[in-house]
């Protein structure tokens, strides 16, 4: 595939040294095509967040290579190709909503004049117009996470990396934000990598679901989810939607009997 934005090849990640060595990830291969929405799903400790952090150059692989837009992950980070959204919104208390969204633009010293307009446009994108002058603590958890998304997209990164962004939210807020995220993804076309431990969330959002196993973390299978776009509340009642959920669940459960090489066979 030549149009891959992210190319992970033979990546291992080992934490600790000597006797305390814990393998977190083992022989990871992953290709993420441009414009895709890829979810990483697996049990706790399967290294899905670690894989995301490796792609984002927040930690380094013990072996293997990671290429992003044809560059090293480090180069991509320095070129500001990544927009990150964490489980916690990580907004700065001392900045207004507007100021928080402008932060990455300030850091990159880019577009000084258009900064405020750009931030306002991003806030409009996440439907938070009118909240520019509020402070983060004046917003609900869901709204705070929307600010974090606006901030991550403000500088038009090539890739959006999301680490369980809705994990701390209630089910209703989460479903609404899922819809919103899909709309934003459609609108911006940003390649997205999304870590979650919710099977329905992964299936609903993704074009591809990478199912992972724990200890050591491996990718068991990448399941393409070809549910029709745009997805909406009806998708959640679609027969095939439940089919994909069932398939991901079975794959997660059967992780002990399936050898890594057998993934393609099971996928077809």
């Amino acid at each position, binding site marked *: 595939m030549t149009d891959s934005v992210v190319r992970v090849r033979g990546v291992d990640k080992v934490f600790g040294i000597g006797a305390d060595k814990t393998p977190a990830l083992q022989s990871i291969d992953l290709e993420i095509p441009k414009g895709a929405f890829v979810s990483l799903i697996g049990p706790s400790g399967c290294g899905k967040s670690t894989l995301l952090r490796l792609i984002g150059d*927040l930690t380094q692989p013990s072996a293997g290579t990671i290429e992003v837009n044809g560059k090293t992950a480090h180069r991509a980070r*320095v*070129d500001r190709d990544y927009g990150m959204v*964490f489980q*916690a919104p990580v907004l*700065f208390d001392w900045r207004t909503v507007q100021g928080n969204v402008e932060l990455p633009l300030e*850091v990159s010293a880019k577009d000084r004049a258009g900064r405020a307009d750009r931030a306002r446009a991003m806030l409009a994108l996440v439907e938070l117009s009118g909240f520019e002058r509020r402070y983060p603590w004046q917003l609900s958890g869901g709204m705070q996470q929307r600010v974090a998304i606006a901030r991550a997209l403000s*500088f038009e990164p090539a890739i959006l990396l999301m680490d369980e962004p809705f994990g701390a939210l209630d089910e209703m807020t989460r479903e609404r934000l899922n819809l919103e995220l899909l709309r934003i993804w459609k609108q911006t076309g940003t390649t997205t990598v999304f870590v979650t431990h919710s099977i329905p969330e992964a299936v609903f959002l993704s074009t591809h679901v990478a199912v992972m196993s724990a200890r050591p973390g491996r990718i068991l299978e990448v399941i393409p989810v070809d549910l029709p776009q745009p997805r909406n509340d009806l998708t959640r009642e679609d027969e095939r939607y439940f089919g994909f959920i069932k398939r991901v669940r079975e794959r997660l459960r059967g992780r002990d009997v399936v050898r890594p090489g057998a993934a393609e066979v099971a996928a077809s």
Partner: protein
Amino acid sequence: MTKRIGRYLPAALVFVGVLGLWELAVRAFGIQQFLLPPPSSIAAAFVEHFDELMTVGRNTLVEAVGGLVIGGVAALVVAFAIARWASASRALLPFAIAANSVPIIAFAPIMNNWFGILNPLSKMMVVAVLVFFPIMINTLRGLTLVDQASLELMRSYAASERAIFAKVRVPNALPYIFTALKVSATLSLIGAIVAEYFGGARSVLGQFIITEAAFFRFANAWAAIVVASAVSIAFFLIILAIERVAIPWHASARIVDSS
């Protein structure tokens, strides 16, 4: 407005009640003036020596503020250096911690010797040394106790160390710095007055209290103590007001509508 009065009413009643009991006790048990003068005598002394009390109060306040500025600036510089450069931390932190264990007030006679017993600078230096540590260590804490996720976020933007310092560490430290300043406001006045006990110009609170006590004019000494307390409280409130304006986003200043 009535709500406000209602809020402060209990405290005001206690205050008046205590003064009343004090007055009554002194009269009823015939307590000697030099042991405990009644509030009425203190009030009379206050009125009689008002001009002088204001002068000595102001002179001592100048020493306290001057010392706080000198010590505070030094503390901020050291804390910033330590937080910014690991080598500075290794070189300076042990001394800063060791210096904190020294009973600083013991230096007062030395400072008098160095800077001149009548020079307010000798008192300022005692105050400066006294407030240095709490301000330095709190600032350092604020600069270094930064949410790990905030640092990762900045790293994901490929932010420079300098940008991380300016946009994350310094704002994060501001509440810590104000906490230290509020503590130091009180501390600086204690430092100044105690340093004055070791000798100084006549027109300062410490010397005024010593002299009046030596001549058994205890009501005057008590009036000076009232002034010292008022100055200390005022100093604290001023810093509190600056804090409210400087960091309105901080949790301590958030306006919660629960009335």
